[in-house]
């Protein structure tokens, strides 16, 4: 009964209650993780098909057939959507956040376990609806992950814009609800369930990043849902929120469904603003970028400090930098719309705000480097990935200020330069954060160590592969190779870029194959890896004080009491080179 009161539910017995509809945040975290893992392979497969089509447009793919131009934009759409929503938003926050946030703050579970379970299963339904879009008449939507109106708002506009696009919007709307439940849990848990002594400024930076990410999700996804509702109405009820008048697609006038009905006063769409969609979408979309990357930053901070055996350089500055990135993330959405004909003054202010994000980002980068400076680095696999994260974050971040300036963005907009930029900083950097988290927390989650050698090979090859794919894309972008176009080989001025595109395609295929090293390592270690001790990395945070894997209520009936900050490594005078957060106050804490 005490256990009931302490964390709301007892340890479940049956298989279904224990592993399927579990209320345990640890099981839910693993469920999220596997959802994202399956999503990432779908997304990767789509990207390989895209790359193959870009250089060999006439190739017939086994089990798939020809890639027609509309199929290509469908691949682009679904790759972006699946990666952004079901990988970058799901794994770092839903997966690792769910599993480790309560443990790291010393809580027995999330604040609302039932809501937590519903959040996962809602995400699952959303993913199924999204995948269903592939199998309906016309196929998946063609409008890109940004869903720009009017293409997305008129069902007759393109083959995939029929039922497929409806499913896409419904899936996103369901995802918004799942995200609400997740954010509600994360914020309440952090505000209300911290263990004794776990002040906000003693929280690990992972918790800080999950906290700010949850707040960003809370503020952003409501806006996306509203935009999705308006878009659904435009598509199915004949309203004109986003569809301007006199619009024609392939020679036909865009009319509301049901044709020229007499029950409506206006017989065609009229007066809607496609820019309204862009504003609403990017008000969500830009914070979404930080939703993807902030947890990776948290993991990187955690790991750099742990494996460098040094306190994180400037803990408070790191916390304020996360907050700063979060706040600024809401006032920069206009930099996605420099080409929309906005006033140069508006563009200028968006540009200044965007470049201001460079300040907290640079604070984080320099603090990471400061943490590494003159340290005794243990180059284990998680650390390799954390360093890889910093490398990708810097490489991708440096092209940010180029795109932030309207003058430079106008020629670079919608060229390969943009995917090069955001894949490095948001895509692969976040993925590296996830890999780092996987290698770091795998012992705690599954009780076994992953193979170091395979992990190191995987990391080095993935890093090289990533740079081989995305660095040349910057040059392609500057040579004005457009994004989202099918059949580059048909364009005269792009002929000379074909060899570089072929190189990228080969690099992409090899990098995808390299990922199977990870899969093999993951599943082999799951069953055959050496047993992990409770604290294999000699880290300080609370998850390493409990058993491996943690019991149902995380701390076996005890409530941890926190006496130290999260990163007390190499404290002078301490018996070991690290002080656990729960260690008694014997050494002089700073």
């Amino acid at each position, binding site marked *: 009964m005490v256990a009931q009161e302490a964390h709301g539910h007892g340890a479940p017995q049956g298989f279904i209650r224990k592993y399927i509809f579990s209320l345990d945040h640890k099981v839910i975290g693993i469920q999220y993780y596997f959802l994202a893992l399956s999503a990432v392979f779908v997304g990767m497969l789509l990207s390989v098909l895209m790359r193959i089509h870009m250089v060999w447009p006439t190739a017939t793919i086994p089990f798939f057939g020809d890639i027609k131009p509309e199929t290509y934009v469908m691949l682009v759409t679904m790759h972006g959507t699946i990666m952004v929503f079901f990988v970058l938003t799901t794994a770092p926050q839903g997966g690792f956040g769910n599993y480790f946030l309560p443990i790291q703050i010393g809580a027995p579970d999330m604040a609302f376990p039932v809501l937590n379970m519903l959040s996962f299963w809602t995400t699952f339904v959303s993913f199924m609806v999204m995948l269903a879009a592939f199998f309906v008449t016309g196929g998946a939507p063609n409008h890109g992950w940004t869903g720009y109106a009017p293409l997305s708002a008129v069902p007759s506009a393109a083959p995939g814009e029929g039922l497929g696009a409806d499913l896409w919007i419904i899936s996103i709307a369901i995802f918004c609800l799942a995200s609400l439940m997740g954010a509600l849990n994360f914020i309440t848990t952090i505000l209300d369930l911290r263990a*004794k002594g776990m002040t906000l400024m003693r929280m690990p930076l992972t918790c800080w990043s999950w906290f700010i990410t949850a707040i960003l999700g809370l503020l952003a996804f409501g806006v996306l849902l*509203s935009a999705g509702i308006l878009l659904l109405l435009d598509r199915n009820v004949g*309203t004109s929120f986003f569809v301007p008048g006199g619009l024609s697609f392939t020679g036909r006038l865009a009319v509301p469904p049901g044709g020229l009905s007499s029950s409506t006063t206006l017989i065609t769409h009229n007066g809607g603003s496609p820019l309204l969609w862009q504003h609403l979408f990017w008000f969500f979309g830009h914070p979404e970028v930080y939703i993807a990357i902030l947890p990776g930053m948290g993991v990187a901070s955690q790991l750099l400090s742990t494996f460098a055996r040094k306190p994180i350089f400037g803990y408070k500055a790191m916390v304020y930098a996360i907050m700063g990135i979060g706040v600024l993330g809401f006032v920069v959405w206009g930099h996605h719309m420099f080409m929309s004909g906005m006033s140069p003054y508006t563009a200028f202010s968006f540009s200044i705000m965007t470049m201001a994000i460079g300040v907290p980002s640079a604070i984080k980068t320099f603090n990471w480097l400061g943490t590494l400076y003159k340290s005794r680095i243990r180059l284990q696999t998680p650390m390799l990935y954390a360093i890889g994260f910093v490398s990708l974050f810097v490489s991708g971040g440096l092209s940010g200020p180029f795109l932030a300036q309207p003058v430079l963005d106008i020629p670079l907009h919608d060229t390969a330069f943009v995917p090069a930029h955001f894949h490095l900083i948001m895509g692969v950097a976040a993925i590296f954060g996830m890999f780092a988290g996987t290698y770091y927390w795998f012992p705690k989650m599954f009780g076994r160590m992953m193979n170091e050698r395979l992990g190191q090979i995987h990391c080095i090859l993935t890093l090289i592969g990533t740079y081989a794919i995305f660095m040349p894309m910057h040059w392609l972008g500057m040579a004005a190779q457009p994004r989202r176009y099918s059949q580059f080989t048909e364009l005269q001025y792009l002929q000379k870029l074909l060899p570089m595109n072929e190189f990228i395609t080969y690099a992409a295929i090899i990098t995808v194959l390299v990922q199977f090293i990870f899969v093999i390592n993951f599943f082999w270690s799951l069953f055959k890896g050496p047993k992990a001790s409770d604290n294999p990395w000699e880290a300080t945070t609370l998850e390493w004080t409990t058993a491996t894997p943690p019991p149902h209520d995380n701390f076996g009936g005890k409530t941890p009491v926190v006496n130290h900050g999260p990163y007390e490594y190499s404290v002078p005078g301490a018996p070991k080179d690290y002080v656990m957060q729960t260690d008694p106050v014997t050494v002089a804490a700073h």
Partner: protein
Amino acid sequence: MATLSPSVTIHDPLTGRGGRGGDPPTIHGGGNNNGGSGSPDFFRRLRRARVGFFILAVWVSMLFISFTSAYVVRKDLPSLNQITNQLGKDWIPVDLPVAMLLVNTALLLGSSVTMELARRKVAQQMALAPVGAIPGIAIGREKTNLWLGVTAALGAIFIVGQWLVWQELKNRGFYVASNPSSSFLYVLTATHAIHLMGGIVALIYAVSASLLRKSIESRRIVIEIASWYWHFMAALWIYVFALLAFVR
């Protein structure tokens, strides 16, 4: 609960003044929760539920802020008239059935009052629960809370009233797709109505919680949160109404 055990813990007498009490007296960082008494645990659960409610309210507010910004921008947006081929405003202010809307507003505000009465009632019940648990003392069957049903009924009547408003608008020629003004009207009122239905579901859950013999503390938390949500919905309706009436 309500056993024949002679040792009865008297809860903190916070509800002496008609149920005004409800704020946790102190904020414990954690730890001391193995006392056996439900009281400290109750306040922690209540506080947690309130934090959750505020987060939900922020999310719902973002939804309506987003609609509002779209509404305000779209209202003044010039559009191309396809017949005259000139830019002009196409926004036709909706001819609102103000009297009907005022009746609906009164209904919803009335339901907010009955919700508050329900909340006070459950607070009173909770304060009296330890007394009722003493063998030999009968303070009546205080399990039911009629105000909950009244509130849910008023909420349902409000939604019927909104439906009648939509019928009236249809008679006046304002369909969903007639004009951006009417599109936004239907979006705003329907979104509010859907959220209010969520409140009705919460009230039905609160009623069933008392039928399902949930502990008085669980019922109190459900009703507290339901009442805050209900007042939030009333305030949101005032906002939507004001937006539709004054920004046209």
